[in-house]
């Protein structure tokens, strides 16, 4: 709770930094504030307090995810300097980032559906503006518009679902809804419109996490938005959305999982196949990463399908590994796409120029692909193990198959980067200190988590 208040106040203060002319302090202020918020969140570990007549509930689950998204934002800030310096409205951008984070924290910690909606809207509305924040770029405008129209439409589904659930349980409170679902399910008297509500809420949430068949917005929006905002969306926002998804379904609808688990299993299989197969044929690195993020959404959905003792820890570990890998990959993309060309061919000759950094990028890509010594493998392992225990063997098989497809295009990054530079290439990949720092940190963390994955996984089990 303290972390949430600190982030919200920090947003207001950064908003004031331009009109009261302390813009120079902007980034240091944000970094110090976020560090403080992260410290406060970790300091609350094992307390589990319900605030404001059970509107938000900061248990270990939400504290872990809160700390994770704050740390990811801090890592993201390392490469974000260009985004804030060269713009006349950088104070607003910093404010919007902080408000997005604020919404994300509420989404990890809500204990009431109304609070969930408030958090989702704070996150989404800031993000619509951020997606179109490159005002003079037509693609960025298009991305913002598409995201806004489709996002508000999906929110409509979510709200309709909430209304039906409220109509049945007569409460927005997660605990009360869970009690209602449990008692009616025990007598086999769950009314039809509870099922409808669950399905509609699932549709709204699946849009937010870009699961197929609700993924069509993702590649266009990811491509059009400024690269740094895409990196933020693919990591922090996706983690928060999954935290909310898992929290809702594990708290409330576990007792009627017989109804939705099969549906979600099929959707998760379709999502990872769609993401991985479509990523293979992409020539733009940015679009490829967008499809890869769709595929990873499919893997994370598997943890919600499994819904057993280890899924909470598994989804946390997976979100961490995926976000670290994505941040590293996007840092590299941002470095080579300075002139607006995001083709994967730009990576040619990258390894010859930057031996160490190409190696680190290799580690990150291996982690995304899920090759043993790195974090991504153990994240996948725990997810698959949980799903296996819940008797969805076919889903594990599909997941392994689609991982193999994934290996193909992830390795294309590595193969392209060790190839000699083509004569036509005009863009010289140049890594700045910030990009190098983020590559180093995310690769080291990916390796560290790969060596000792049980720590993160065990936090929530």
């Amino acid at each position: 709770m303290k972390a949430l208040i600190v982030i919200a106040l920090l947003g207001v203060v950064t908003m004031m930094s331009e009109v009261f002319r302390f813009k120079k302090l902007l980034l240091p202020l944000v970094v110090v504030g976020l560090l403080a918020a992260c410290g406060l969140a970790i300091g609350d570990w094992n307390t589990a307090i319900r605030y404001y007549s059970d509107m938000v509930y900061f248990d270990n689950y939400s504290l872990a995810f809160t700390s994770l998204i704050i740390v990811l934002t801090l890592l993201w800030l390392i490469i974000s300097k260009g985004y804030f310096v060269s713009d006349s409205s950088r104070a607003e951008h910093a404010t919007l980032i902080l408000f997005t984070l604020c919404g994300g924290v509420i989404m990890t910690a809500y204990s009431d559906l109304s609070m969930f909606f408030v958090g989702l809207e704070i996150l989404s509305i800031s993000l619509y503006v951020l997606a179109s924040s490159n005002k003079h770029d037509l693609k960025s405008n298009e991305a913002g518009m598409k995201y806004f129209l489709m996002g508000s439409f999906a929110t409509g589904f979510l709200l309709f679902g909430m209304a039906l659930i409220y109509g049945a349980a007569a409460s927005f409170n997660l605990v009360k809804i869970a009690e209602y679902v449990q008692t009616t399910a025990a007598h086999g008297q769950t009314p039809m419109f509870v099922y409808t509500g669950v399905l509609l809420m699932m549709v709204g949430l699946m849009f937010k996490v870009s699961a197929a068949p609700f993924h069509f917005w993702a590649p266009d929006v990811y491509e059009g938005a400024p690269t740094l905002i895409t990196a933020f969306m693919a990591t922090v926002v996706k983690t928060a959305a999954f935290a909310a998804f898992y929290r809702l379904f594990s708290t409330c609808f576990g007792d009627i999982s017989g109804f939705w688990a099969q549906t979600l299993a099929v959707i998760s299989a379709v999502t990872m196949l769609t993401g991985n197969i479509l990523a293979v044929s992409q020539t733009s690195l940015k679009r490829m990463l967008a499809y890869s993020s769709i595929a990873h959404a499919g893997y994370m959905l598997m943890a919600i399908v499994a819904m057993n003792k280890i899924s909470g820890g598994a989804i946390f570990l997976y979100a961490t590994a995926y976000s670290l890998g994505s941040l590293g990959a996007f840092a590299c993309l941002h470095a080579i796409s300075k002139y607006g060309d995001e083709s994967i061919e730009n990576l040619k000759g990258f390894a010859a120029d930057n031996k160490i950094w190409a190696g680190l990028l290799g580690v990150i890509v291996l982690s995304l692909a899920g090759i043993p010594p790195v974090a991504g493998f153990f994240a996948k392992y725990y997810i698959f193990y949980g799903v296996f225990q819940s008797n969805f063997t076919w889903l594990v098989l599909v997941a392994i198959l689609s991982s193999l497809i994934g290996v193909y295009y992830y390795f294309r990054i590595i193969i392209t980067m060790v190839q000699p530079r083509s004569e036509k290439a005009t863009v010289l990949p140049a890594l700045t200190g910030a990009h190098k720092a983020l590559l180093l940190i995310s690769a080291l963390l990916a390796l560290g988590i790969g060596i000792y994955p049980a720590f993160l996984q065990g936090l929530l089990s």
Partner: protein
Amino acid sequence: MVLLSTPVDYLPIAMMFVVAIGFVLFVMFATHWMGPKHKSKVKLEAFECGIESKGNSRLPFSIKYFLIAILFVLFDVEVIFMYPWAVNFAEWSKHGLAAFGEMLVFLGLLVFGLIYIIRKGALKWE
């Protein structure tokens, strides 16, 4: 699973849809058929408070009007939140000043927003 409600129970909803659509269609066609038609030049003109209409209505006008209007709506909506608070205040104030403090926080954030738009020059007309 045992179904408490069968699809037949939702028949009233389907009937309501039919009635709603039917009413709209009925009114649209009924006014069309029943009303008298005078197609003179004056009747077909756009009504402009009695003044003769001229020119194109799709003129570009200053974005400032829109900005002022949207800021007004914003603060207007936020003031609406004070009504339920004021109605319940007599009851809440018996239990201490918490409700008062919460409204102060809300108004404080509102004032920050106001300061922000004034300092940004959003209300400057010239």
